[in-house]
């Protein structure tokens, strides 16, 4: 039975697209068939982060409007056979998405894949609403700062009221993915701590992704960080998060400050 997962946050720039790509790749590495769907019509990015921007012919809008078949629009990843991308249109806007069109595509995707991962646009308007509409599971991406946390709280409220699952009276499964976490800054009080965020949002924690240059490097290379450098700390954190989505229970690692006392004493080599 396919699972539809929406990656959402309310606030922009917190790492939805990066997390979509990384989680999608990690789930695909476990042998399950995965499609990542870009709902950010007009401002598409997922194709770049997945390194497929030169292979886009048809997009989500073409499929919802019946101008192309789903199989024509799907792009198979070159590195992983089980990973697919359904890109958004860059030339249209969110009004081009219809509720019926999205419903039809989601039904087809459910029949084809084990995981359908929808990358939501920022905001709480039509685009974000359609992205979360059909979801069974939501990953709420949050940065450890107050504005992101409040926006996530808002999105959780919408997940509990505006999705098909909520309208049927069922309970929406929600997970918190805390990204760009910097232990040092959290300890100095410059960022919210993990416990603060969990207390405010009160949904289960899926993972903590440390702030890392590795993530930016992977995005610029057009490779999900879980594929580009699987041994790096953010990649391991994403892989663990993907395993938890699969129902495995894995101990949560709070990223440690690399520079321990020892590191501070011998941190730099003399010139």
């Amino acid at each position, binding site marked *: 039975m396919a699972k539809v997962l929406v990656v959402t946050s309310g606030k922009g720039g917190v790492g939805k697209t990066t997390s979509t790509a990384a989680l999608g790749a990690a789930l695909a590495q476990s042998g399950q068939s995965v499609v990542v769907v870009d709902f950010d019509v007009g401002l598409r990015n997922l194709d770049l982060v997945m390194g497929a921007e030169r292979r886009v012919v048809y997009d989500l809008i073409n499929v919802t409007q019946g101008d192309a078949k789903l199989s024509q629009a799907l792009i198979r990843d070159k590195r992983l056979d089980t990973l697919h991308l359904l890109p958004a249109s860059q030339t249209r806007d969110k009004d081009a998405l219809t509720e019926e069109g999205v419903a039809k595509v989601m039904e087809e995707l459910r029949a084809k894949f084990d995981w359908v991962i929808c990358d939501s646009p920022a905001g709480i308007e039509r685009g974000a609403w359609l992205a979360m509409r059909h979801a069974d599971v939501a990953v709420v991406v949050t940065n450890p700062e107050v504005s992101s946390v*409040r926006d996530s*709280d*808002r999105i959780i*409220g919408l997940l*509990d009221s505006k999705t098909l699952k909520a309208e049927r009276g069922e309970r929406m499964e929600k997970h918190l993915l805390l990204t760009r976490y910097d232990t040092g800054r959290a300890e100095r009080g410059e960022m919210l701590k993990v416990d603060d965020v969990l*207390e405010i949002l009160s949904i289960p924690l899926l993972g903590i992704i440390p702030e890392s240059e590795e993530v930016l490097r992977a995005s610029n290379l057009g490779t999900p960080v879980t594929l580009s450098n699987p041994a790096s700390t953010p990649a391991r954190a994403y892989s663990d998060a993907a395993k938890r989505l699969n129902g495995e229970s894995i101990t949560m690692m709070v990223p440690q400050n690399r520079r321990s006392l020892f590191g501070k004493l011998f941190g730099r080599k003399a010139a």
Partner: protein
Amino acid sequence: MTITAPPRTSIRFRGRSFLALVLAPEAPVEGWLEQFDAWAAESPGFFIGRPVVLDVTGLELDKAALAKLVSDLNERTVRIMGIEGSDPGTCGLGLPPSLSGGREKAVADVLDAQSAIAQKAPPRKSNDPLVIEGAVRSGQVIIHPEGDVIVTGSVGSGAEIVAGGSIHVYGTLRGRAIAGTTGDAKARIFCRKFEAELMAIDGLYKTADSMRPELRSHAVQAWLEGDAIIMAAMN
């Protein structure tokens, strides 16, 4: 010479909800008006003294067409008190204000409520508390003008609870709590952990800046003494 300042009285704002009938014309408006006339001929005087909200969702009327529709209805003794579903731009001066956020009610309730007022009968009051299981998230608004509101979880920053009676929050209160909106000065606000942005009782309000900081993170209750909101820790 001394100048005595006039005693300052607080200006009170109160929320009150009313029931209104909603008329939703269908395109083409001309044809709909004909049908309306045929119907009104059978029930003359139905709209006299009844507040009516005009719902123009999906009609895509411009300002002139909307003004004409309002005046056409006025001629038929239908007084429009507000317009729902129009572009903010088309509801300019000279037209009823645009409304949003209405809640559905059975028509019978609307007619009941008005005949009750007409007969000077005491309005039916349901004092049942509204119980919200779990959290009220940022951006959500809970309105319960007839009684207490009880929230078993937290009220997020940017969420709002509006109650005719008292408000009880068993989690953290981070948003706004507005109690006693129907003129109940005895209403109170209780929360297990106090981080509120704004509290109001019977139209008097206090923002976070003017609340005692030492109460933050404590269990707190608030009530009204005269024109002052008193807040105290409960442990």
